[in-house]
């Protein structure tokens, strides 16, 4: 997906909502647009499915200028999840999920199958098929919202602050679910949020926006270790080294295995996890993968990782 000098101006607004944004997103990546409210992040996202029409510039989806694609074809092949969920109150969970496959005229047997698959994917019991949305909790409703958005296997999934309206505990589990689903689907995901931790936790790449412009674009670690402006430094609180440690894994900085260790840590665990053990008095940790020792980690390695 590619944005080419995209500008959006709302009627009666003094400044452009989005100003001259050019970006190229890697296919299959989880890209998060991060920025304060009113920075134009949702507007930029909504140019992808033409819910917002740019005043200038082009948006390419799979190499095609999206203005050249039939609007309904474009939208049916683009998943769309919004903060307010927007389930259809008079339809069952299954009917909500089946909307886009229905619009695409899949046969009913294939739709039934797909609904079952999706309920399983978003971890809702199959008995929820015939429930009405109002019988579900907020978190469950958004699970249905996600299932509905990916029902027809869209090539692009747009998520506009999808977890902004649920409480912190539910948000955390929904974030973990979306990470898992993203890895399964391999769809290109564009996700908007103002929550820094959510962005750092989910993104392969982060686009930082302010006042309609892209301020910085890079991996979470790049942004934390090399913020290009004071704004990014401030927003991400890059001086918070513990936050940075949350993005590095034991396997990234470990040393070759040594016999004398006190405790063990999984190779996939973050350095932030290792910090807990060091603070509790561990000297050298064995790094393990599938129960096999593949390296060691000590506090010096963690400090070195911060200095890099």
């Amino acid at each position, binding site marked *: 997906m590619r944005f080419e000098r995209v500008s959006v101006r709302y009627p009666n607004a003094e400044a452009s909502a989005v100003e001259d944004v050019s970006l190229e997103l890697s296919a299959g990546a989880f890209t998060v647009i991060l920025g304060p409210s009113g920075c134009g992040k949702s507007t930029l996202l909504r140019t992808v499915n033409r819910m917002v029409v740019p005043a200038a510039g082009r948006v390419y989806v799979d190499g095609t200028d999206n203005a050249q694609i039939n609007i*309904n074809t474009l*939208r049916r092949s683009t998943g769309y999840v919004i903060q*307010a*969920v*927007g*389930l*259809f109150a008079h339809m069952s969970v299954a009917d909500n999920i089946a909307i886009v496959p229905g619009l695409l005229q899949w046969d009913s047997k294939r739709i039934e199958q797909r609904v079952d698959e999706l309920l399983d994917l978003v971890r809702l019991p199959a008995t929820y098929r015939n429930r009405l949305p109002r019988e579900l909790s907020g978190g469950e409703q958004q699970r249905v919202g996600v299932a*509905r958005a990916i029902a027809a296997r869209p090539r692009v999934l747009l998520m506009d602050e999808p977890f902004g309206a649920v409480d912190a505990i539910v948000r955390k589990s929904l974030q973990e679910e979306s990470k898992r689903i993203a890895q399964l689907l391999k769809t290109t995901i564009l996700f908007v949020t103002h929550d820094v931790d959510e962005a750092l936790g989910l993104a392969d790449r982060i686009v930082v926006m302010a006042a309609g412009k892209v301020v910085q674009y890079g991996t979470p670690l790049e942004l934390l270790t090399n913020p290009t402006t004071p704004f990014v430094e401030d927003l991400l609180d890059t001086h918070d080294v513990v936050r940075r440690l949350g993005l590095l894994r034991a396997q990234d900085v470990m040393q070759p295995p040594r016999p004398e260790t006190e405790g063990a840590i999984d190779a996939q665990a973050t350095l932030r996890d290792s910090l807990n053990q060091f603070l509790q008095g561990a000297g050298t940790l064995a790094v393990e993968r599938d129960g096999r020792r593949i390296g060691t980690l000590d506090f010096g390695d963690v400090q070195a990782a911060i200095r890099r």
Partner: protein
Amino acid sequence: MIDAADFAAHLQRHVELAGSALAIATLLGLAFGSLSSHAHAARGPIVTLAGIGRVIPSLALITLMIPVFGLGFRSACVALTLLAIPPILINTDLGFRSVDPAASDAARGMGMTATQMFWRIEWPAALPITFAGVQTAAIEVIASATLAAFIGAGGLGEYITRGLDANITSILFIGAVGVAALALLTNLALGTLRRLIGVRT
């Protein structure tokens, strides 16, 4: 002077009057109600007119029709139609505007055409409220159709005028009880219909 055949004829007239007024009013109320909820500019004038229509007393409205349509069925039918439009129109307008904006946004974003959105999202959401409007209008029209007798349009109100003229309470009573029973039965029937088509209120 009063027998079963006579009563049946007046009852039939009453139902014809109320039924045709309600049918026309439903069509017009739905049309203008959905127009006012969809077209921003049209909403003010349409809803204001409907509000005025609600305030004019039924007897006044029926009398006002005489110079235009003369004495009889046509005047009564037009007046009753005008009476029935406001509740239907206002409820239709409210019904369409009760559609969750997030649901509309999602529907549009998923690639529904305007027609698909209307029939699959907006109309089902509006139906319960619209139906309640029709139910209210039906009861109002049945009650007000009694006044049609004053301008020679017949109906069960005929017994009331006759009873008043002859000063015989029992005749008057036949009209009053007949209208009340008809209104109650209609309400019951529409309530059942509402449950049958699965409209929740």
